[in-house]
């Protein structure tokens, strides 16, 4: 007997709850007998666990209370649910269509946005050891700059010293526009990457041909992607074949040691060809293998299982002090970054590939939810409004013995049916919209709806249940006597909720509208902002090494300037949108240690650069090619003058090349230029130094007359080919390059604009349905009013008033919410527009106008009807 009291109470009560009385004795007897026996065999704790498990397992139809067990499960009634639901859908055809239209737009938008979000979150998730892979990044303490890069000796030494490191690999930047010989032709390939032979130990890239462990083992071994293999060696035995690749102007032969499956797109490492890191040191002899401070590549570590990131970072301090000297940790802050954080959470200097932005992912997700919510709200509104029409049906059903649950299920089946129909329509919408959506989001998502069948079904069900539950609850609550006596006035039922939901819908629409408008203003601001330079009609060509271009530029300039369509020819190491180099400068008046000097952005240019970009000179003079001393002269921007606190900047002497292997160089400041934006408008204009050097400028810039664009591009290309027959002609337009900096802002603008339009359309669909309903309900009132002499206008006013108050309310809620959200977004810009308060009344007017248009169609029709028709019925 004692053991009975040991039986845990919770599962026993649960058993008592679901088990039918007739079988309780025998079934629970069995469980108690087993429990008793197990207590003896395995102790009280395990016996309790087993008992718990048994109770759960026994929760099956044979044990359930039968009140309506068979009744509930009868297939006949299911059939009838569907039949009746289908009839109702057909009977209220207009309502059903409105509902389906709204829901299918909402579901399609929801699905597309979530697909985007999902894709953004899936980055790097295919690596088997993704939890243990880290990128070694570095912070520069003096400037607070976080860089994604690291120095070459870090990785190998960490592997040698620290036992927690299971494997490491380094990667270079991508090499693009690399010439590869293919028979007679030369093909330019992108995304070549130098990596250590341990690359495949760290990352999970599927090798389809060749030995995974021995790929890249020799310095001239390469791994190519499936696409490359098909392109160059279709139908041949790929392994052991050779490719001639020119990384730095000279063709070398490489042997294919393995073929990898094309890398998944959701990664920042999407190579076409992998080359051995040893080959990079070979090709670029000046590229230091041993400099601990030169951040010029990427290092990835695979830590052993169970090693915590924080603990490992603690080991890094002593490690760096040991190898790189005492001062190292005072200047740099090396740390680890989990590989899965790279795409969405990392916005560092020198990223390997452009990253996503977690804020925009959150925004997309929030909008997805909003839109779906607006769609569901439509359904709820229309159906609670419609409930009066169904009251008699419900009353009769109840009289014939339907219980409340039956009616609820009936209505839920109806809403799920509508939702599932909407899903079918939304598939078509998704199919049609996907190319545009891919275009906006710059993704390449496919939609194989057949394999997504379960997801779509799930969406259909949840949307159906979520939007159907309230109307079902409300309608099933009707009292049959009231309803059948005809005393039932339902329009007040759920009226407050309906108004509340309309307010919610319009609030969301207004927030999206104001958001879209403000983002538009900011983007127009970015486009119109005086950037301090003029980038239109400038062609930039790169691909030649600095020395090569420096040698050839006099001839190139001479022959290009012969053409009247070409205005200026210049060279530079960087231009707005493409960063130059970072150098430290020591002005003559500086007292303090070299280490504390910040690195400044530096453009190496020639004497034509300021002319080409129309950058305004505030003081002093431009570089003069004729003066030999100008090769060590400096031109500063205003921010740099401010940084160095120079009262009279002209003639100040400055020293540079500090800490580099070359000789320090001394020179004078000869000019000051007005600040110009060389980075995106998210960032403040940083101090910058411009130097004249033919040896360090790798971009050819050609300013031309806008009318002759195609002709000029042809001319420049010919000239380029003449001088560098082996190099790619890699062209870009300065305007485009700078615009690219704000690409994600443009993307956001497109997404928010599209969704605000959709939100308003969906909300108006709901409004249209409601207005139709009101007009029908008030048909007698309208008739009487007209008989008593009311004008058509006053009746329209009466009907429109119903929607005016909710609209006012939603404006009052939506305005501050949108203000707050937009201010949050704008703080990310160093240069931004002020909030445009006119948007509040404007959004109200626009939304009200659209709503009034929708409603008035119906109220006009209703107010125009002949009162005789409306009143005769009784």
């Amino acid at each position, binding site marked *: *007997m004692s053991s*009975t009291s040991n039986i845990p109470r919770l599962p026993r009560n649960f058993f008592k709850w679901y088990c039918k009385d007739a079988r309780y*004795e*025998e*079934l*629970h*007897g*069995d*469980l*108690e*007998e*087993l429990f*008793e026996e197990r207590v003896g065999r395995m102790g009280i704790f395990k016996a309790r666990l087993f008992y718990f498990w*048994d109770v759960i*397992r*026994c929760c*099956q139809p*044979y*044990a359930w209370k039968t*009140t*309506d067990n*068979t*009744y509930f499960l*009868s297939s006949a009634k299911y059939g009838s649910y569907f039949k009746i639901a289908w009839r109702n859908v057909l009977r209220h055809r207009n309502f059903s269509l409105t509902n389906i239209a709204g829901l299918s737009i909402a579901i399609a938008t929801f699905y597309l946005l979530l697909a985007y979000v999902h894709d953004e979150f899936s980055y790097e998730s295919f690596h088997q050891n993704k939890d243990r892979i880290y990128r070694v990044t570095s912070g520069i303490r003096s400037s607070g700059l976080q860089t994604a890069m690291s120095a070459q000796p870090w990785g190998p030494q960490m592997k040698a010293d620290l036992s927690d490191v299971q494997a490491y690999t380094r990667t270079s930047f991508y090499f693009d526009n690399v010439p590869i010989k293919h028979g007679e032709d030369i093909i330019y390939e992108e995304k070549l990457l130098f990596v250590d032979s341990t690359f495949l130990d760290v990352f999970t890239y599927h090798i389809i041909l060749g030995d995974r462990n021995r790929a890249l083992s020799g310095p001239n071994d390469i791994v190519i992607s499936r696409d490359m293999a098909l392109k160059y060696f279709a139908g041949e035995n790929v392994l052991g074949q050779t490719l001639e690749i020119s990384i730095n102007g000279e063709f070398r032969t490489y042997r294919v040691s393995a073929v990898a499956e094309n890398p998944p797109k959701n990664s920042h490492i999407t190579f076409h060809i992998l080359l051995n890191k040893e080959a990079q040191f070979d090709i670029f002899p000046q590229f230091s293998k041993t400099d601990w401070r030169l951040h010029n590549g990427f290092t990835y570590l695979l830590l052993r299982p169970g090693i915590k990131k924080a603990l490992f970072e603690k080991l890094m301090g002593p490690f760096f002090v040991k190898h790189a000297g005492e001062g190292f940790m005072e200047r740099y802050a090396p740390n680890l970054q989990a590989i899965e954080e790279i795409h969405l959470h990392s916005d560092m200097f020198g990223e390997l590939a452009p990253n996503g932005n977690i804020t925009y992912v959150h925004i997309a997700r929030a909008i997805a939810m909003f839109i779906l919510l607006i769609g569901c709200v439509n359904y709820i509104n229309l159906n609670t409004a419609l409930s009066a029409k169904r009251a008699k049906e419900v009353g009769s059903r109840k009289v014939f*013995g339907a*219980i409340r649950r039956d009616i609820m299920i009936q209505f839920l089946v109806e809403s799920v049916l509508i939702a599932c129909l909407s899903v079918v329509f939304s598939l078509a919408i998704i199919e049609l919209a996907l190319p545009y959506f891919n275009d906006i989001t710059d993704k390449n998502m496919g939609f194989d709806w057949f394999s997504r069948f379960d997801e779509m079904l799930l969406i259909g069900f949840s949307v159906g249940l979520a939007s159907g539950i309230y109307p079902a609850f409300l309608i099933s609550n009707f009292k049959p006597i009231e309803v059948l006596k005809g005393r039932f006035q339902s329009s007040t039922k759920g009226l407050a909720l309906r108004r509340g939901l309309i307010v919610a819908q319009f609030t969301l629409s207004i927030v999206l509208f104001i958001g879209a408008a403000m983002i538009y203003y900011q983007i127009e601001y970015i486009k119109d902002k005086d950037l301090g330079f003029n980038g239109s009609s400038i062609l930039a060509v790169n691909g030649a090494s600095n020395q090569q271009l420096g040698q050839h530029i006099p001839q190139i300039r001479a022959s290009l300037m012969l053409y009247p369509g070409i205005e200026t020819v210049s060279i530079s190491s960087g231009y707005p949108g493409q960063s130059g180099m970072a150098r430290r400068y020591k002005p003559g008046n500086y007292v303090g240690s070299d280490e504390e000097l910040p690195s400044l952005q530096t453009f190496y240019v020639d004497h034509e650069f300021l002319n080409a970009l129309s950058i305004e000179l505030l003081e002093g003079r431009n570089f003069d090619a004729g003066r030999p001393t100008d090769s060590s002269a400096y031109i500063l921007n205003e921010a740099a003058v401010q940084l160095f606190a120079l009262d009279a900047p002209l003639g100040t002497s400055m020293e540079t090349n500090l800490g580099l292997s070359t000789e320090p160089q001394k020179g004078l400041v000869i000019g000051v230029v007005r600040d110009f934006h060389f980075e995106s408008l998210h960032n403040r204009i940083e101090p910058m130094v411009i130097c004249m050097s033919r040896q360090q400028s790798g971009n050819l810039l050609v300013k031309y007359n806008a009318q002759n664009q195609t002709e000029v591009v042809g001319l420049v290309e010919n000239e380029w080919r003449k001088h560098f027959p082996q190099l790619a002609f890699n062209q870009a337009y300065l305007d485009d390059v700078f615009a690219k900096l704000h690409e994600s802002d443009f993307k956001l603008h497109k997404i928010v604009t599209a969704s605000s339009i959709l939100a308003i359309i969906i909300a108006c669909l709901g409004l249209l349905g409601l207005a139709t309903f009101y007009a029908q309900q008030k048909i007698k009132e309208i008739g009487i009013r007209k008989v008593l002499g009311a004008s058509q206008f006053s009746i329209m006013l009466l009907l429109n008033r119903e929607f005016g108050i909710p609209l006012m309310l939603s404006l009052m809620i939506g305005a501050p919410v949108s203000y707050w959200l937009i201010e949050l977004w704008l703080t990310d810009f160093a240069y931004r527009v002020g909030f445009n308060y006119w948007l509040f009344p404007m959004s109200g007017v626009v939304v009200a106008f659209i709503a009034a248009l929708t409603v008035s169609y119906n109220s006009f029709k209703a107010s125009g009807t002949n009162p005789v028709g409306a009143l005769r019925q009784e």
Partner: protein
Amino acid sequence: MHRPPYFTDKSKFNYMGRSYLGEFEELVLLTVGVLYKDAYAVAIMKEISGQSGRSVNISAVHKSLYRLEEKGMLKSQLGEPEPKRGGKRKRIFSITPTGKKAMDESMELRMKLREQIPELAFKF
């Protein structure tokens, strides 16, 4: 709640007028026979797991027993209260003629099929 009268008894649902035995149901049916006077759920469970070596959950046995009773192959009555069951009675099952017939037919079918297998099929 009110229960409408127009629903049929579930036990009448069978395929083409005949009931078939599932594999586990057949095991349960046989075991009920083996245990004869002492055939109740816990004993049947232990017997099956003892003889076949597979682990069996009590709910699976319950399910089969009630289903077999619905099909008319088993009948049952309640036994005496027992202290080790918290003073509760157990339900004792026994085979009906229908049950025996179903069991025999199933056995017979298997034997018939087994005998028709040509020797050659076993030359591995």
